[in-house]
């Protein structure tokens, strides 16, 4: 009888504590960290690996990242082999219960290679271009992936997660409408970018990416390719080179000087440049920068 009472007391005390335990989530990119915090609210504790200013393709496999994953409930990733370093960190974490939420499972993929791949094509991602989060319409799909993952871990919070998600997407839809209005007059305009990071963004807003500063994905610029690109830009009347926050600007500036184009620093991730502290600010920054340069 005494034991039963003690057990009851213990359960009463521990239930609210259990309710307060936050889900520990690690994300590969700052954008995913913001999305997870938005949906999870005060029920999640989020840590991120790649800073906004870093190139997500390359990350040193550090034991400190393994420690973050060791106690995590889930690891949210972009997928499509963007995080080639991810599996080593997962293995090093020794966390057998880790749930990996691969957001690429939920989106429509662009530039999926249709032929046999080899390294002569550069650092091609075999599952397609992984920079899909730069299309704001894809955020709804990414949210769905994170939402399903969080619900799996904490089913009783489903309604809470749903209402957080709906509130954000409502706000985002309004912004997407504004961005479409801003970009509408620029439909069909041609741009060049350093890497194929902005294919999804260009597709959404009707821009045409006609060339890249890299001769092949992941391959540093060469004089021959730069000369070809200059000719192409002159023929096509390209006036804007979009440059990701982490690439060197020597070659793009030389090309811009020769062609009379403008180099526009764009950010591929939240926190990549000043004024891109959250996803809406990031897209606002990219859209306004492109719109100003293309006018």
């Amino acid at each position, binding site marked *: 009888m005494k034991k039963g009472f003690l057990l009851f007391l213990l359960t009463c005390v521990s239930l609210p504590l259990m309710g307060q335990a936050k889900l520990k989530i690690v994300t590969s990119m700052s954008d995913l960290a913001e999305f997870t915090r938005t949906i999870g609210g005060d029920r999640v504790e989020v840590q991120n690996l790649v800073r906004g200013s870093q190139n997500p393709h390359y990350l040193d*496999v*550090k*034991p*400190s990242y393994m420690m973050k994953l*060791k106690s995590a409930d889930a690891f949210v990733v972009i997928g499509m082999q963007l995080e080639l370093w991810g599996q080593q960190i997962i*293995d*090093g974490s*020794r966390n*057998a219960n880790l749930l990996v939420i691969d957001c690429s499972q939920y989106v429509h993929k662009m530039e999926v290679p249709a032929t046999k791949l080899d390294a002569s094509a550069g650092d091609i991602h075999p599952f397609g271009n992984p920079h899909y989060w730069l299309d704001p319409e894809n955020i709804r799909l990414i949210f769905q992936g994170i939402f399903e993952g969080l619900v799996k871990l904490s089913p009783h919070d489903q309604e809470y997660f749903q209402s957080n998600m709906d509130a954000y997407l409502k706000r985002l839809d309004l912004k997407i409408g504004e961005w479409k209005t801003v970009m509408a007059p620029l439909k069909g305009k041609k741009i060049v970018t350093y890497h194929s990071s902005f294919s999804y963004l260009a597709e959404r807003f009707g821009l045409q990416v006609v060339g890249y500063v890299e001769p092949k994905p992941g*391959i540093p610029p060469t004089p021959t390719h730069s000369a070809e690109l200059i000719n192409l830009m002159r023929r096509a009347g390209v006036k804007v080179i979009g440059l990701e926050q982490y690439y060197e600007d020597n070659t793009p500036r030389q090309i811009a000087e020769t062609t009379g184009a403008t180099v526009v620093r764009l950010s591929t991730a939240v926190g990549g440049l000043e004024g891109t502290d959250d996803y809406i600010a990031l897209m606002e920054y990219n859209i306004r920068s492109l719109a100003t340069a293309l006018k």
Partner: protein
Amino acid sequence: MQYWKLSFIIMTLSGCWASAFGQSTLNPDISVIPRFRIDTDDGSNLPDERSFRNPRFSLEEFELALQAYLNPYARADIFIAKPGFEDEPVEIEEAYATFLRGLPLDMNIRLGKYLVEFGKLNMLHPHAWPFLSKPLSLERFMGEEGINDLGLSASFLIPTGDLYTRLTVDILQGLSIANGPGMESPDEERVSYANAARLMSFFPVDTNSDLEIGLSGLTGIHDPLAELRFHYVNLDFKYKWKPDAYTSFVLQGEGLLNRRRVSSGVEPSSEVITTSGFYVFGDYQFRKIFTLGARYDWAQSPYDKDDKASGFAIFFGFYPVEETTAFRLQYQNTLFNTPDGGSRSVNSIALQFIFSMGPHKAHPF
């Protein structure tokens, strides 16, 4: 002949996997990394007629890596190496399975033949070094092949809060010790096990830099006939600063203390000798594709404290397309001091070319 064997291994493995599963996604990751070299030195001439010999082309090593998950709990890594173009034998450099999940205490178990986690550099394949020559302390105390042995390894994460601290312990067959520098040939009837351990901690210093510190120990029988034992203690560190994708600086060093019982005189008596060695290097990446570094190393002989060598090297790296192709140029001066008081200085210049086919993974920090 050796190449026929190697080709046969590659074709057989590829064929087996392809026919058995019929899906390329289930094939293991196959990588090939050859290291070519052109070098010259002035060490083979008489001291008063010092001149560099004609540069010599050579294939340092051809490495074939096969890596795959065996199941959700374990993965396997096999590295086959063929040094040189001549009759040097094809070697199984490493072949081990690692059990990553499902074990108590989050333990990892490694079984097979592998480069032992002793110090920082021993585990790293030479293509991942920023320089071309093995530091003298490693060469003299661990031999040409390093501590590479058959055995069983268990590693544990030590609960130190957010700090990553790992303890690895090994039980080894002792073959690499028996075949090491100056070691006696093993008596095949006897087994002289060796034991190794390493405790390492990883400290994030700030947003852009990290520090790793490790303490290793190794003990075994270096003379199976006389049952003479040795003990190595090794302290290592690695500091890396990487503010952006185009700039980084690595400062790394190791110091090794050797204490061993050696035969003295004709009588079956022995004495204990203590010798040591160390290296330290810095490597600066100043553009995305260029690195420049320098190394100083010093080491006594495992058997004689008056047999010493010191070296200074400058090395330059050029990586035109990430890690798929690498050119490294190194100048090294090595000074040998012999027990009789003599000394000899050797200058060497070497150019190395490495290419890498396949998805051989990035090496951890």
